């Protein structure tokens, strides 16, 4: 029995070793070696000079995550309250943009936001002044929100539909008005969805490079771009690139660890009880 399951899991073990464990080890190796292959701390130490890039990435990623949460939460709540058939349609609409290529969607935003793009032409046509939108931090955040908001909405929607209607009624029954019901019951019970939504938006947003490259111009360099440049760009330096990747990974792990602290107590209990009831 046991050897059977080992045999069955062999392809996955091989896959994970070749494509996850080995690359990770390589990243570690490159990060702590110089071009000649001898051990050095220089790469890691020189990451410090890019702290402004790190801060900008984290700031823009956090901003995009907050906006996604702010927009996604009410939207998920509205979907969760619809009839079953309309819920399915709405969920499909949320996922619809994901069927199109990521690059294509971001290109589309370029043509919309350009100084001579669709939006500015439309503004000019009705006699309003043109607005400079492309190559700004705002455009980068917009791109992040647009691309990653489905990953916020879906986990929120899934957790909100699972909240038992009678628990909300019980809160009303005990004297809670609609604001109190939301703050004291709905929000705490939806925390697992908030945690996974935030994680699923923040992590790719922090490490993105295509969005900032296409919508942010040269002035909004993010960590992703920095890493990209070390491997494929003019500044070819895989050792530094690996060091930056390693530091980014550590930062993301720390962020997720902090998020999971919120998750531990209340949300886990809610999930457990949900399992008992269903």
């Amino acid at each position, binding site marked *: 029995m046991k050897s059977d399951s080992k045999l069955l899991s062999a392809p996955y073990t091989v896959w994970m070793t070749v494509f996850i464990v080995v690359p990770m080890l390589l990243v570690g190796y490159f990060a702590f070696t110089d071009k000649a292959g001898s051990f050095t701390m220089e790469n890691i130490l020189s990451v410090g000079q890019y702290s402004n890039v790190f801060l900008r990435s984290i700031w823009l990623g956090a901003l995009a995550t907050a906006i996604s949460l702010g927009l996604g939460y009410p939207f998920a709540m509205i979907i969760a309250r619809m009839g079953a058939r309309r819920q399915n349609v709405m969920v499909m609409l949320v996922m619809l943009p994901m069927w199109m290529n990521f690059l294509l969607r971001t290109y589309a935003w370029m043509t919309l936001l350009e100084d001579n793009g669709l939006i500015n032409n439309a503004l000019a046509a009705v006699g309003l002044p043109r607005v400079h939108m492309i190559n700004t931090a705002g455009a980068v955040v917009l791109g992040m929100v647009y691309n990653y908001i489905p990953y916020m909405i879906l986990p929120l929607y899934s957790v909100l539909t699972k909240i038992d209607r*009678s*628990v909300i009624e*019980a*809160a*009303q*029954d005990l*004297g809670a008005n609609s604001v109190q019901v939301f703050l004291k019951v709905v929000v705490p019970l939806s925390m697992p969805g908030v945690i996974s939504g935030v994680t699923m938006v923040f992590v790719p947003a922090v490490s993105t490079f295509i969005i900032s490259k296409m919508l942010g111009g040269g002035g909004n360099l993010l960590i992703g771009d920095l890493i990209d440049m070390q491997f494929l760009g003019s500044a070819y330096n895989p050792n530094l690139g690996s060091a930056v990747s390693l530091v980014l990974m550590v930062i993301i792990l720390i962020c997720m660890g902090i998020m999971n602290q919120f998750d531990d107590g209340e949300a886990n*209990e809610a999930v*457990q009880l949900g399992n008992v009831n269903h």
Partner: protein
Amino acid sequence: MKDTIISLKDITVSYDGEQVLGGFNLEIHDGEFVTLLGPSGCGKTTVLRTIAGFIRPDAGDVFFNDKNITDLPPHKREVNTIFQKYALFPHLNVYENIAFGMRLKGRGEKEIKGTVQEMLAMVNLTGYAHRGVGQLSGGQQQRVAIARALANEPKVLLLDEPLGALDLKLRKDMQAELKKIQQCTGITFVFVTHDQEEALSMSDTVVVMDGGVIQQIGSPTDIYNEPENAFVADFIGESNILDGVMLEDYSVRVAGHSFRCLDSGFGRNTPVDVVIRPEDIKVVEPDATRIVGDVTAVTFKGVHYEMIVDVAGFKWMIQSTECRQVGDHIGLALTPNDIHVMQKSEYSGVFGDYSTFSDEMEEDRTASEEANIREEGDADEI
């Protein structure tokens, strides 16, 4: 009679165009234990949810202490509900669940603590304050729900089939516990159930409902001994319901013979329904009485034997501590006290004799009813 605390006037409620209640009237008196009893889909939960404020009636008014509260949202009503599925807050522990209502009212921490301890003691859960509600059994969760509702000091407690999910033994204990709590606190209880035994053993007043209409209101003994129509007679306990003719006051013709009875005021030669409870019938020798028949089935029920007796084609059910064998020719003796006469109603003839009665049938019926309840549960709870 105590004052009326809740009064429903001409309440009409429909779901998706289907009318559940039409022109429904009910008065509930202060301090009473009232049970709404009826089969699933009869509208009893709708009545409860209308009182709680979760349903806004299409027409009619709800009065609370003579004040019209029809438009008052649930959180402003001085009633609390015990839900069938407990509906405890899964993200809060027992203490915080019970404190929920008091915190909303901005009570001091000291007062909250005192009340929570008092409530926990009342429902025999002292020492459970800091458990998570997910760790509790069904019965314990329901007791937390009761404590949570009572901590809010409601004037009226609404209970929506609160014992439905518990096993038989626990249900009996909880019945006694609920009755005790009601007597201690003096709070008006409005209890919804489809279990007639539960209704009879707990209530001061039973309201029997079917099809959104009240069939009878009365004390448990009234409902059992003096059912107003064939539906009530059949729903509450076992009964033999026969066609009869009221010859004159205190005399009824049933099963081909005329009997003296205690009923009057039906007029002469009026067709009526006659109820005879299985446990009232005495088994005697065939030559000692006018009703004679053959035993066709015998079931041992513990306290008594349940026998089906064929009397000229009509199958009677009798319950007796004396055992007879299948095929025995026996006599059935009745005293005037055993015969209860009812007006003919729309339910006349719906409930026939026990000719289709068998234990297997009964089990199948109960099982399919339970399945219905589960299916209709959602509709019932809207």
